[in-house]
């Protein structure tokens, strides 16, 4: 190939590239694959949900939605990336409540601000569960509370990190029950359930989808689910309210976009997400994973998170959950 032909083909390529690059003004969004930032590692519950969701929304919008795991710092790394991403509609992400709202309350040097991210839709709300091992003597919340009152500071309850929904639920419960227990911090439910089944801790505080299978197979017994109604996945487990303990707690997983995204693209994504959530097949897949679908769309989701933040802010000012 001579220099001239090389030059010619280069100009030709450039021309083609330019004409393609000029096209988006006319074409429908999305034009190319969309990146979905998951702030957790592959194989986790948020990642699993994201991957299923990406298949459906991708099919709907005729473009691939590619999950990108940006894990670290309990979601902060991924959410910081989402907040700083270009608002061109080609980077969206998943957020988890209440961690997403609570970080800024505890620390003032969080990498993202809630204002930099616009919530799109909540998909799953996974209620809190308190559970004991199958051979534990406690059958109900009252049994546990009674034992804790007889042995103050002796029983231990696990949770997954200070300030997370499990920790806050456990605090709320022990506060309302008027008991003093030892909180034991775990990094994930796998280790915590192992410790529970090995008899090293007395109770486990986590989310339903994490232990529904173990509840079903009988290796773990749930004392209560922290929701207002019983859950389909674990119909035999009574709520806290049924047993006289008014505790409501859940972890929510939803989609969000960079705040500067155009309303047009926001609405395209919102409608596509609505289609996915209303799809029976999608719901069946999530039901299989014991993830309850609780859709909260657009502005309602924004409001939901803001309310949550205000509640947590009040709680923090009244009684900080971390010693300072």
């Amino acid at each position, binding site marked *: 190939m001579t220099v001239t032909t090389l030059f010619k083909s280069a100009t030709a390529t450039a021309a083609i590239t330019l004409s393609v690059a000029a096209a988006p003004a006319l074409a429908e969004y999305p034009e190319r694959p969309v990146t979905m930032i998951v702030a957790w*590692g*592959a*194989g*986790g519950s948020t*990642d*699993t949900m994201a*991957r299923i969701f990406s*298949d459906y929304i991708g099919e709907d919008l005729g473009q691939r939605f590619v*999950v*990108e*795991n*940006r*894990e*670290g*710092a*309990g979601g*902060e*790394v991924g959410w*910081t990336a989402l907040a700083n991403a270009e608002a061109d509609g080609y980077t969206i992400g998943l957020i988890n409540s209440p961690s997403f709202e609570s970080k800024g309350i*505890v*620390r003032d*040097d969080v*990498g993202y601000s809630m204002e930099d991210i616009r919530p799109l839709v909540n998909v799953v709300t996974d209620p809190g569960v308190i559970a004991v091992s199958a051979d534990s003597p406690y059958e109900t919340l009252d049994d546990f509370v009674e034992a804790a009152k007889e042995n103050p*500071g002796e029983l*231990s309850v696990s949770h997954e*990190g*200070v*300030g997370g929904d499990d920790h806050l639920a456990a605090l709320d419960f022990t506060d309302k029950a008027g008991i003093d227990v*030892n*909180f*034991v*911090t*775990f*990094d*994930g439910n*796998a*280790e915590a*359930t*192992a*410790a529970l*089944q*090995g*008899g*090293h*801790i007395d109770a486990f505080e986590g989310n339903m989808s994490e232990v529904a*299978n*173990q509840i*079903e*197979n009988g*290796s773990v017994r749930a004392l209560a689910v922290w929701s207002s109604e019983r859950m389909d996945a674990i119909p035999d487990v009574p709520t806290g309210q049924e047993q006289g303990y008014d505790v409501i707690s859940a972890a929510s997983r939803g989609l969000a976009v960079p705040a500067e995204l155009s309303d047009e693209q926001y609405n395209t994504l919102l409608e596509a997400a609505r289609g996915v959530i209303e799809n029976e097949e999608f719901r069946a897949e999530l039901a*299989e*994973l014991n993830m309850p679908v609780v859709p909260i769309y657009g502005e309602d989701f924004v409001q939901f998170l803001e309310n949550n933040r205000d509640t947590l802010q009040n709680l923090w000012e009244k009684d900080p959950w*971390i*010693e300072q």
Partner: protein
Amino acid sequence: MQDLLIALGNIFEPDSLFVLIIGTLAGMVIGSLPGLSSTMGVALVIPITFSMSPENSLILLGAVYVSSVYGGSITAILLRTPGTDASIATALDGYPLAQQGRGAEAVGMATIASLIGGIFSTILLIAVAPPLSRIALSFGPVDYAVLAVFGMVTIIGVVSSNPIKGAVSAAAGLLLATIGMDNFTATQRFTFGESSLFDGVPLLPALIGLFSISQAIALSVPKSASILSETADISHGRPYPSVELIRKCLRTIMKSSIIGSAIGVLPGAGTSIAAFISYNEARRSSKTPENFGKGEIEGVAASEAANNAVTGGTLVPTLTLGIPGNAVTAVFVGGLTIHGMAPGPRLFTDFADVTYTLILSLFLANLMFAIIGLGVGRYLVYVTRIPGSVLGPLVLAFSFIGTYALRNNLFDVGLALCFGILGYFMERRNYPAAPLVIALILGPIFEVNFRRAMQISSWDLTIFFDRPLTIFLMVLVVAAVALPVWQHRKAKRAIAESIGNESATEKS
């Protein structure tokens, strides 16, 4: 039994065999590339399994898992660049062997040891899965804390002829392990506001830096670049280890298979710890312990049998209780759940045919990588003939790509480079890198479990003396410290005596 027959039918379907071969090859490549860990390999193929049948996807995951653990050994031996952390101990003797022109022989031994270890642990998995997982569950936070100390003490004694330098390296690792978000108080420690450090110093970039990039630097420095070209003369070495040599190592291989399987069942402790403990045991019981670290093929056999024996072991608690023993099997749980199979006892009842398909595929994957390894592994020795000026940049490129791919984070690449420079100078000053890495893994395990134990007992230290298991583990720690010291003294006394005798004869 019927499920086993169905599983047997499943695995010999043409498409299943195809998936098995692809998985084995992919696993070997992933495992041998520094920076691509077994965890990453399994995680990478999970999206591919979405569209597959549950049987085939488990075959793929299983094949990638076991063959990636094996694959790490080839580069560990030939390039001193362990493809995965499982093969760090393999490099200790494998690389000196390669330098002596016995690279092919070492790869052969690693393959045979991996095969035996893998098959052994799979038999164990199929035979005693439920009772063994109950033993694992009896390990509580206190026990993990002691186990972590045991691991660190062992490693310091293992990797270096100079325990002080080993201890310095481990101490540096422990210090680095304090970096990151403290999950108990939600405060940051030594992160200087860098969000990439919130979860602590990421292990794999550190590992890639210390073991691969340092090597790439060494290759690129004139003079030291000749390290590899010196080893290039492999044409005189035996292509395979002799039957006699294999027979000699068989005891070590069997012992390491048992150690590896047992450690695999324990959550938390993984392939690298199993490899180091087995390596140490092989050295301890050897008649010629002084040869270890200088090219003792038994060391390669011990490490490789143990790390592959871990694979079956880790799946015991994963499959029977849904409790993954390590990061790879945690990803496995994700892979199972995607196909609607809840990890737990139901796998052996409702989904028994699928579960047995997975277990059978582990047998076949072990055989497959052994066949490929024995066939092609020999020719892989020629990678050492590639001049340092080519290999160095190549290793560097793979290291950077691998590091970046882990979290799509450029900070990690810079971090790996820093560790690479650190590793290069540590090596020049004869500070072993392995204790640093092990301390980086075990430091947080110790800290977190110690604090959990203290939370459970409300700061009552007697919790360490409550149960026989904990006391037993503490005896192990004491033994791990005392034995080398005692052996060292004994050796010293023997030397002193022989010198004394000599001088006595001189006088007469």
